[in-house]
């Protein structure tokens, strides 16, 4: 607030950052042991854990697994967390009926039984899901986990007024009319008033959906379906010390400072088919300086980044040069894109939208995102490669990774003519001011659109206020934001878990809107309806592909990249693999250490 | 004959070959030059005079004539606390009671300061430290040179304040300078200077910052104290009126040099330098009208870097062309004896000056 003032220092700051980057590159790696592929320091090699398991056999029981992070979770409460790394990490201390398979790559996106003895017995109409619980499943105080605990845990999703923040899919599917008031306003004695879930005995739980949803079991694999024991529910404060059902329990937690998990001695290996529980202790240390964090990862002080969103540019440079063997380059599941709100003229006309798509230089946008390694492959459509039904770059309706990858001025002018704006037009790009990479892409887009006669201003808005600023359609229209730069990743790997809030007309909200393009397409809405009623995987994939095509044909989006990250894995780590279940992150729950020291 | 002072053992030999003087204070050919970016500033450029104990010397001149620089030179304050690369350059001899100060060890000179020679400054408000009480400052001055405890020193301070006429000295001793009036402050300053019974007291414009009624009181005080302590006193002023009654001898300075010196009555009644005439003309006198009172010397003081050639006063002198051959502008006049112990530096002949004084100047005064 003081001492470090004035905007005039910006330039100095940039120059300083450049010098520091150079210094860090040299200083952080005195040894310069270039280990590209299994080497003397024991690193598994570049991309060795990307979609495959690295060094599984070297994992030993014991030791302290050390996470570092520049960001704390939104909440460690299983009902309230929405950050991907929180869901991934929460498997240490919470179990669900079913969970993502502990497998690398695509297989990790599948669902596997956890507390339940098997996957759901689903009725023919797809509306009834029945599970039986395993034997020997216990809470951290040794009491057994019952079906009622699971029901209560799920009911907490209804208490959005107290427990805001988490995903609400279960609430929308089980109680679309919003009849249940949540456990805290529940008048019934046992607070288990939610009609859609039945618990005939402690070992059985039955879900009765008013309307089928083929992704329901995926939703039950979400952290928000975790059991919570009523007598241990501290409501809004639950996230400070969730009561453990997994192999580890909270020892200490200071928000924004550190978190330590230790073994839950009541947890029994034989009751858990998926968790290996290698380390004795798991710690997270929160940093405020991403460069410092990366330098410490490289120095070997910590094992991996909790957030799993890739290294900072400086750390990346050093790591790629000197420690490539410690890096993986997975696809993140995120697509980075520009979207055109139809409420802002002339983007109500699809030809004007397509003029922007053709006019854009896709290679330069990719470069602005960080290039093919740190940024990702050129995005050609709107379904992430990790989502079933995706065709990846094979589906490229505007030839963005092909003939038009450097922009097609002639085609763009053609579209402009068809739109009735042969001489181009003026509009504004809205971009978050706290994401330098997004600002860079906006500038790149601005430059290439100039060539086709489209003049754009760039408006950098307060990124922390995203839901209030671009999440408000009336504000978007008022400000004339014809192009919004954003990114989106799947909550769970399905077209519903990714695209429903973006493309379904029911999801156009007055505030907190995510359907920025304001898509009101009966065909798309209908396809989503078909999707939730289609139970077989092949059928689901086909519909997902079709929805993607419809969205692309409408020209609502200009995808930049299928995002890739460059994540650090310390040489101590064993049994490391990335999983599509958590958007290309390492699967935390089964990480082990090679040495217990 | 050479007379060693008490601390004579540590005092260096005189610089020149000339013998040690007999006068209590003797200044010989003192030069004080300051190097600056614009050139060498010759603030004092060859000044000589003597002063006996119990006598008062008035040094008179405009600001910039070198009178304050001379007094600081005697006190050794050009060398003490000089920082940086540019130092004042002093040459000549200053003899105080047989000790030559310029060649002496600076620390020995420091020990003389405040004890054998003391100084009163023009503005007592800025010359007293605002953060210390009057008492603390007098006590400090006393204890530098007397190994006594604070209590004794404070008694001495009260005694001195009493002596200089400060009412309730035992209370006022704990006051801060800003709590005193201007006259009281100067009294306190005098008390501080005299606390060690110095044999030489230099008063640099002691009354300039005070109003007229207080001026007289302070001058009376200095005179009384001199009588009591028998010190030698130098009063530096731009105002001849201040020294009219006080000084035994007068020294008129112009452009860093002495232009006239002699017994006070001689300089007053038979001045032999046109600059002295100008000063007398600008002297305020109570028996004159307001209008006539001040006839300032026309023009401005000379640059001390490029002192006018010839007589430094020539650009302002109304009689510059009286001597022949443009000599006033080419040759620097030396001090010549114009009467008993009366010296002046002017190219005009004795007769010319006598005539101009009696016919043109004196009647107008």
């Amino acid at each position, binding site marked *: *607030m003081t*001492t470090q003032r004035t905007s005039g*220092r910006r330039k100095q*700051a940039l120059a*300083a*950052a450049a010098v520091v980057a150079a*210094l*860090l590159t040299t*200083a952080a790696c005195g040894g310069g042991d270039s280990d590209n592929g299994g080497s003397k320091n024991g690193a598994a090699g570049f991309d060795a854990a990307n979609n495959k398991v690295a060094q599984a056999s070297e994992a030993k029981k014991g030791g302290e697994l050390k996470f570092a992070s520049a960001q*704390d979770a*939104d909440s460690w409460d299983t009902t309230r967390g*929405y950050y991907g790394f929180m869901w991934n990490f929460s498997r240490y201390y919470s179990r669900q009926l079913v969970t993502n398979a502990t497998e690398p790559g695509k297989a990790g996106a599948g669902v596997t039984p956890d507390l339940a003895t098997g996957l759901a017995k689903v009725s023919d109409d797809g509306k009834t899901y029945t599970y039986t619980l395993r034997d020997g499943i216990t809470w951290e105080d040794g009491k057994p986990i019952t079906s009622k605990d699971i029901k209560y845990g799920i009911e907490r999703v209804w*208490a*959005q*007024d*107290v427990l*805001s923040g988490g995903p609400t899919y279960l609430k929308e599917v089980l109680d679309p009319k919003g009849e249940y008031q*949540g456990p*805290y*306003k529940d008048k019934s004695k046992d607070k288990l008033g939610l009609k859609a879930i039945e618990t005939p005995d402690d070992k059985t739980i039955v879900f009765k959906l008013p309307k089928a949803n083929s992704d329901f079991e995926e939703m039950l694999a979400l952290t928000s379906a975790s059991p919570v024991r009523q007598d241990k529910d501290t*409501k*809004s*404060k639950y996230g*400070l010390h969730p009561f453990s059902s997994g192999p580890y329990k909270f020892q200490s937690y200071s928000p*924004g400072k550190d978190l330590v998990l230790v073994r839950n001695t009541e947890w029994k290996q034989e009751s858990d088919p998926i968790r290996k529980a290698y380390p004795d202790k798991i710690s997270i240390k*929160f940093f*405020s*300086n991403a*460069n*410092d964090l990366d*330098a410490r990862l490289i120095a070997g*002080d910590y094992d991996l980044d909790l957030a799993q969103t890739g290294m900072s540019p400086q750390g990346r440079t050093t790591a790629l040069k000197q420690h490539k063997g410690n890096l993986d380059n997975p696809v993140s599941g995120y697509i980075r894109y520009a979207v055109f709100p139809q409420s802002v003229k002339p983007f109500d006309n699809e030809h004007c939208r397509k003029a922007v798509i053709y006019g854009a230089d896709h290679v330069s946008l990719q470069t602005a995102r960080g290039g093919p390694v740190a940024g990702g492959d050129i995005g050609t459509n709107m379904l992430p490669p990790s989502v079933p039904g995706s065709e990846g770059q094979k589906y490229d309706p505007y030839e963005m990774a092909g003939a038009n990858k450097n922009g097609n001025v002639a085609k763009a002018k053609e579209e402009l003519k068809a739109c009735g704006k042969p001489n181009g037009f003026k509009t504004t790009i809205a971009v978050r001011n706290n994401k330098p990479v997004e600002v860079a892409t906006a500038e790149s887009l601005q430059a290439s659109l100039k060539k086709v006669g489209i003049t754009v201003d760039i408006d950098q808005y*307060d990124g*922390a206020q*995203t*839901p*209030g600023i671009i999440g*408000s359609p009336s*504000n978007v229209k008022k400000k004339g934001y014809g192009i919004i730069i954003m990114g989106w990743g799947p909550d769970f790997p399905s077209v519903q878990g990714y695209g429903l*809030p973006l493309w379904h007309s029911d999801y156009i*909200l007055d*505030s*907190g809107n995510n359907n920025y393009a304001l898509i009101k397409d009966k065909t798309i809405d209908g396809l989503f309806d078909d999707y939730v009623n289609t139970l077989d995987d092949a059928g689901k994939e086909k519909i997902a592909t079709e929805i993607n095509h419809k969205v692309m044909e409408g020209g609502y989006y200009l995808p930049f990249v299928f995002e890739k990250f460059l994540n650090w894995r310390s040489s101590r780590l064993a049994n490391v693999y990335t999983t599509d279940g958590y958007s290309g992150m390492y699967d935390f729950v089964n990480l082990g250490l090679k040495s217990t020291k | 004959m050479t007379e060693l002072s008490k601390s004579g053992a540590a005092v260096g030999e005189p610089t020149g070959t000339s013998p040690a003087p007999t006068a209590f204070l003797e200044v010989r050919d003192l030069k004080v030059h300051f190097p600056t970016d614009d050139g060498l500033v010759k603030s004092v450029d060859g000044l000589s005079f003597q002063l006996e104990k119990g006598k008062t010397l008035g040094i008179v001149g405009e600001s910039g004539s070198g009178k304050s620089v001379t007094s*600081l030179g005697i*006190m050794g304050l050009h060398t*003490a*606390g000089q920082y*940086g*690369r540019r130092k004042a350059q002093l040459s000549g001899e200053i003899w105080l009671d047989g000790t030559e100060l310029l060649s002496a060890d600076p620390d020995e000179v*420091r*020990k003389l*300061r*405040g004890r054998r020679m003391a100084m009163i*400054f023009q503005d007592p408000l800025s*010359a*007293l*430290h605002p953060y210390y*009480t009057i008492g603390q400052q007098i006590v400090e001055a006393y204890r*530098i040179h007397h190994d006594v405890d604070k209590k004794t020193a404070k008694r001495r301070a009260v005694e001195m304040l009493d002596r200089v006429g400060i009412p309730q000295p035992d209370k006022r001793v704990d006051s801060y300078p*800003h709590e005193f009036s201007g006259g009281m402050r100067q009294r306190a300053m005098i008390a501080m200077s005299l606390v060690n019974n110095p044999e030489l007291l230099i008063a640099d414009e002691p009354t300039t910052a005070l109003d007229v009624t207080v001026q007289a009181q302070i001058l009376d005080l200095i005179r009384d104290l001199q009588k009591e302590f028998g010190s030698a006193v130098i009063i530096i002023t731009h105002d001849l009126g201040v020294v009219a009654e006080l000084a035994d001898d007068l020294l008129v300075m112009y452009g860093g040099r002495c232009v006239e010196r002699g017994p006070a009555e001689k300089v007053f009644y038979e001045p032999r330098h046109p600059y002295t005439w100008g000063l007398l003309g600008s002297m305020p006198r109570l028996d004159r009208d307001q209008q006539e009172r001040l006839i300032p010397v026309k023009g401005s003081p000379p640059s001390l870097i490029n002192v006018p050639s010839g007589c430094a006063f020539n650009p302002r002198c109304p009689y510059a062309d009286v001597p022949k051959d443009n000599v006033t502008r080419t040759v620097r006049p030396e001090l010549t004896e114009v009467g008993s112990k009366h010296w002046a530096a002017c190219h005009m002949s004795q007769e010319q000056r006598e005539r101009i004084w009696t016919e043109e100047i004196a009647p107008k005064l």
Partner: protein
Amino acid sequence: MLAYLIRRLFAAAVMLVVIVMVVFSIFFLIPKWAGVDIATSFVGKQADPSSVKAVAEKLGLNDPIYAQVWEFFKGIFVGRTYSAGGDVTNCSAPCFGYSFRSEQAIWPVLTDRFPVTLGLALGAAVLWLIFGLAAGVLSALKRGTLWDRGAMVVALAGVSLPIYFTGLLSLAVFSYGLGWLDAQYVPLEDSFTGWLGGMILPWITLAFLYAAMYARITRATMMEILGEDYIRTARAKGLRESVVIRKHAMRSTMTPILTMLGMDLGALIGGAILTETTFSLPGLGQAVLNAIKNQDLPVILGVTLITSLAVLIANLVVDVLYAVIDPRVRLA
């Protein structure tokens, strides 16, 4: 002196009330004018209107501002209870608000983090006073020399270089490069040497910036003071030059230095954001930064108030010291 103190205290109290008013206005009115909905950004990705409404209620965003100010003040003395949707949260006195983001009362967060920041600020202040004053005085006494010029060039560099540059540089060299210092924060109560090891680089980094400023100010002030008449008087008394400098010149030089110190310390307590961020120190600055990132208004509000209080107290202390040093001030 007593009257002076009472006046100062009264002025400080008035200032505090004004600050609270202003801070509240900023935090509660400006989002409204800017058309930003705090509750919506709070709810997150899937913001359905009912939860937005509930959150707004819980955060007290619907109450008029005077009611919010009143509740806040009351909370400081008697504690506060937030209740919404069957969830009751107690915030015991002194309650400086409650963060619904991290589910913590603000006061413990402040008391937890304050020592870190205080340690950082005080430790750095000791360093910069020692080095800044010494360099400034020496430069003033050796003005124009090679030493003086050298010191002033270094000082200029210190003033101009941003903290994240010097901070990252020192980390890169001493921590990652040479490995002399771990430079990770360890609480004082855990290990004194660990704490010292973790604080040295932040201290030096912060002190470098300030020492540079203080050296420049000290040099300028010292040179000015040395030209004062009363310094000449002190020499005329026959004082040794060292005593003149220490007793007479330094005391006067301290007045502007002290004024600066009060402001800087006060500001640092809430504003060492860059230093704390660079070195990942869990202090107030870091808390504010996190809070800004997370839109955690109560934390920002609490820290702002505590910081204002710190600045006020620091200035009050300076005012008192000022009066001790300069007797003329006591009259003002």
